[in-house]
């Protein structure tokens, strides 16, 4: 079992209830899409699974481990097995692409190896392979601030491919790409997960992409699972109910506020 949630609730510091009474069960090797309107709790759920948020109530098991049982070293070890793809790639502007990708395995490297690799990148082959999968091989020695928003998102994905985690969590991984590239990139991500029997959970704004690339789709609405079905069983009514009565002026929690991927490297 990759992910097991029982009665999980998440309250943000400002009192906003991001998730309530969540029951979720995702097996190893599954590929799941999270859909729902802005503020539905997609990012909160992914951050919860990435051990970035601690549930305020309920049981959470990620990769057969309870992240919040005492012991920081266990949590650290668990975190190296989880790869989180951020919507706004968290890459320093002046860092070179190769270093940004190699940073994916810092959790597995010794301090000395990472120190040497900072001055003289050691695993150039590995970084090259990860970037080549995303057609970015020629950007290896460029700085991050020389790339476009879509390219940056793909560098962020390449970092996680290089990390090769057992659980890949992707928060709007293709939001800065055009539809064709977005579909292509999701396909690469899905194939990578499939080949390593890794679990992939991705939140997406585009329903089409979710239905096309993921065998299972979970619809979130106001922090509650609206539906959780295999893709062929999803009806148009399910989708309509998910987005109905949507307020235009959405009261988003700060955690889910959209940050344009191009504004920062």
């Amino acid at each position, binding site marked *: 079992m990759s992910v097991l949630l029982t009665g999980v609730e998440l309250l*943000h*510091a400002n009192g906003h209830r991001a998730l309530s009474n969540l029951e979720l069960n995702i097996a190893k090797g599954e590929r799941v899409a999270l859909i729902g309107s802005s503020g539905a709790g997609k990012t909160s759920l992914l951050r919860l699974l*990435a*051990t*970035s*948020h*601690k549930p305020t109530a309920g049981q959470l098991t990620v990769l057969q481990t309870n992240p919040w049982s005492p012991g*920081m070293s266990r949590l*650290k*070890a*668990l*975190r*190296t*097995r*989880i*790869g*989180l793809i*951020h919507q*706004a790639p*968290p*890459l*320093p*502007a*002046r*860092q070179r692409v190769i*270093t940004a990708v190699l*940073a*994916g395995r*810092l*959790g*597995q*490297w010794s*301090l000395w190896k*990472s*120190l040497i690799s*900072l001055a003289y990148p050691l695993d150039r082959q590995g970084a090259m392979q990860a970037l080549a999968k995303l057609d970015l091989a020629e950007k290896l020695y460029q700085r991050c601030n020389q790339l476009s928003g879509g390219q940056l998102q793909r560098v962020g994905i390449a970092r996680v491919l290089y*990390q090769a985690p057992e659980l890949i969590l992707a928060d709007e991984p293709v939001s800065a790409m055009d539809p064709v590239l977005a579909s292509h990139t999701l396909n690469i991500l899905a194939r990578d997960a499939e080949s390593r029997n890794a679990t992939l959970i991705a939140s997406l704004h585009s329903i089409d992409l979710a239905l096309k690339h993921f065998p299972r789709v979970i619809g979130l609405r106001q922090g509650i699972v609206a539906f959780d079905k295999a893709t062929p069983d999803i009806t148009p009514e399910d989708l309509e109910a998910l987005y109905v009565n949507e307020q235009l002026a959405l009261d988003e929690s700060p955690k889910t506020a959209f940050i344009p991927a191009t504004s*920062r490297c």
Partner: protein
Amino acid sequence: MLTTALPRDPAALPRLGISLLALLLLWPGFHLSELDIPGLFTGENARIMGSFLAGFWPLAYDSEFLSIVGKAILETLAIATAGMTLAWLVAFPAALLATRALSVSALHRQGRPSWPGQVIRTVVRIILVVLRSIPEIVWALLFVRAVGLGPTAGVLAIAITYGGMLGKVYAEIFESVPADSTRALLLGGSSRLQAFMYGLLPAASGEMISYTIYRWECAIRASVVMGFVGAGGLGQQVDLSLRMFAGGEVASLMLTFLILVMLADLISRLLREPQR
């Protein structure tokens, strides 16, 4: 033509009020410090100042004096550089300990670090405050008593005071740069030092270099001042020249300070250039 009266600037009156208030507050400052500018230009004072300033020209540039100045420059630079190196050795680890930017517990506590970490950070911050709260000249006077006249006192004084300053400012630079890349690395299971090297340093290095060079420049000036109390270098030379009323030598030495500061400025610019 516009015949109607222009509407009155609504900001004018408050601005006038603030200006008057500022004058009202500044006046006691001048009064209490017993600043006496006209006194410089009247009677006996004016004559002394005049003859002293007249002595500034011509500049002293005989070879004997220049070789003394050359040695003093090297000594001053050596004091400043050695002091800064020691200061950096204190400041860098202290900044890593003091900064909240590398807190692992803050990740899942919505930005608030856990209390044991905060206790350590507070203790380190207090130590840094103690180091920098005593001016380097006071440290120098103490060390001159302890280790005798000479550059060692200056080096130690700079190391202590500037260690405190650098540590505080580094820690604040770390907290002011965007935290997302560092947090992402910590969340990927990397250690604090790894997250620092791959996430924080690339974002903070430019500001760190610029501030460190500026502090080096300050250290050159400080080592000059400490020369007056016997810590060697250019300051000691200025002290000697002043006592001998050798205005030309004093002027030459001041010109030397100017060149040294300009040099520091140039180095700082050159080091930051490739960062853009």
